[in-house]
């Protein structure tokens, strides 16, 4: 006597089991992204040339490109780009650095957490651009007020991302550090910080995009040179070619920034692979 109790399925029809898995795993082949840009620009170019998109509603992409080339030739590109990049780098670096430092402190010390989390929550939703007049009074009309604005705007999202990332560091790794009697500073520098790095970097992506937005806003409110000032001038003259040239520079800046963080992620987070 065996355990088998089911009668053999003798004459029943045999058919393959229907496949129901797969999907839900988007990948991103590089060329598709580029293709979307090319198709969109080609469509606009064709539309403006064929005439069913009026020159008043949309500038011709080739004209925008020509404007960009002119801008580069005349040297005005650098006159606008250099102050903008300086503001972005100085302001963004201050904001990100202080943000990471404060975020780590919130993640490590109860008193700091209890004191600063509500404060950060109160500061986060303030539209920072509304504070520009205040910053002008505090730091003067020059560069310092723009640095402060950009730094402040980058600071809050960086803090939130950083302490969230520190909270998510695997506690068993910290216990491990303690069980080997590692010093406090080694635990923070070699266990907590690397563990929080993925979260910090993805937070930086958001904060630096915010930094670009604030840069333009600050330059629109008061700057002689800078991409924001350039766009504002073009906009008030309804010079769409120059307006789009300025916007294209900003887009490129954003892509470049995101690419830079991508490179940093590859180098620092190679262990994730």
């Amino acid at each position, binding site marked *: 006597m065996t355990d088998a109790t089911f009668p053999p399925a003798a004459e029943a029809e045999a058919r393959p089991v229907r496949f129901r898995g797969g999907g839900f795993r988007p990948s991103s082949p590089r060329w598709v992204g580029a293709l979307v840009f090319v198709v969109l620009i080609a469509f606009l170019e064709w539309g403006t040339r064929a005439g069913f998109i009026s020159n008043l509603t949309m500038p011709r992409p080739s004209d925008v490109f020509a404007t960009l080339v002119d801008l580069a030739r005349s040297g005005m590109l650098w006159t606008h780009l250099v102050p903008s990049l300086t503001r972005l780098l100085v302001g963004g670096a201050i904001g990100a650095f202080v943000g990471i430092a404060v975020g780590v402190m919130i993640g490590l010390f109860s008193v700091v957490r209890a004191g600063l989390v509500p404060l950060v929550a109160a500061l986060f939703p303030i539209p920072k651009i509304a504070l520009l007049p205040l910053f002008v009074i505090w730091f003067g009309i020059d560069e310092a007020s723009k640095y402060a604005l950009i730094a402040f705007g980058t600071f809050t999202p960086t803090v939130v991302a950083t302490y969230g990332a520190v909270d998510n560091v695997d506690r*068993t*790794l910290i*216990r*491990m550090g*303690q*069980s*080997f*009697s*590692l*010093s406090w500073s*080694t635990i923070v520098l*070699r*266990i907590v910080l*690397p*563990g929080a*790095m993925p979260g910090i970097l993805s937070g930086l992506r958001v904060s630096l995009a915010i930094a670009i937005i604030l840069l333009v806003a600050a330059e629109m409110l008061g700057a002689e040179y800078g991409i924001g000032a350039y766009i504002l001038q073009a906009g008030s003259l309804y010079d769409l070619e120059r307006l789009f040239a300025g916007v294209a520079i900003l887009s490129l800046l954003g892509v470049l920034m995101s690419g830079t963080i991508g490179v940093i992620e590859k180098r620092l*987070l190679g*262990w*994730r*692979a």
Partner: protein
Amino acid sequence: MDLRLESISHRYDDVEVLRDISLDIPAGRIVCIVGPSGCGKSTLLRFIGGLERPTEGQVVQIGAPPADSINPLTYVFQDFALLPWRSVEGNISLILSDHGIRGRKAESIIADVLARTKLSEFRKAWPRQLSGGMKQRVAIARALAVNPAVLLMDEPLSALDSQTRELLMDDLIALWTRQPFTAVYVTHNLAEAVRLGHRIVVLSRRPGAVNEIVEIDMPLADRDLANPELDAKQKHLWHLMRAEAEAADKELVHD
């Protein structure tokens, strides 16, 4: 160096976890702690190594640890606790360099422990590239690198599949036979306990208290899978624990 647990009791808020546990951990022996899930055996292990403090009672060291012991009480964790951003040797060198051991001396220690755990070819590998069994061997190598007076192992084989567990158990026995070490080994697996333990402490379910202490005198190297004496011991342990485990299984979790 011996360890002695002096009437340790512990409670979280109003839940009593451990009750009046006294125990001797003699040098050169492996003490296994078994018990139904939730009986506080892992908590007890954290008390022994000073990672947590009991509400009452204390753990005392008797005698000084050997002079060359860098970290006398060293843990091996169930989930390995390897830093994923450091290579195999990086995980070991971090600990050594924090204790002031760098360069040639660190180099020779790392080479030695990797050889003892059969990991020499995997020095540069990342933890993510290793199987569970290899990860635990790295964790064991890291623990050996600090030359512990007592190894505190918290279910070190529980995250592994049964074949890997068998292999690693053999490795542990080989390591001990070559150079006996003191260990406290927490497990819920009775087969592991009778293979590795010189002394097996059976805890009752919560609040955990010492139910019985079983001594096994047979040398570790002679204990194979089909040994009738070990089988009898294992049956005896299961007999002690069965009702407790059943009752523990039906308890609600208070966390």
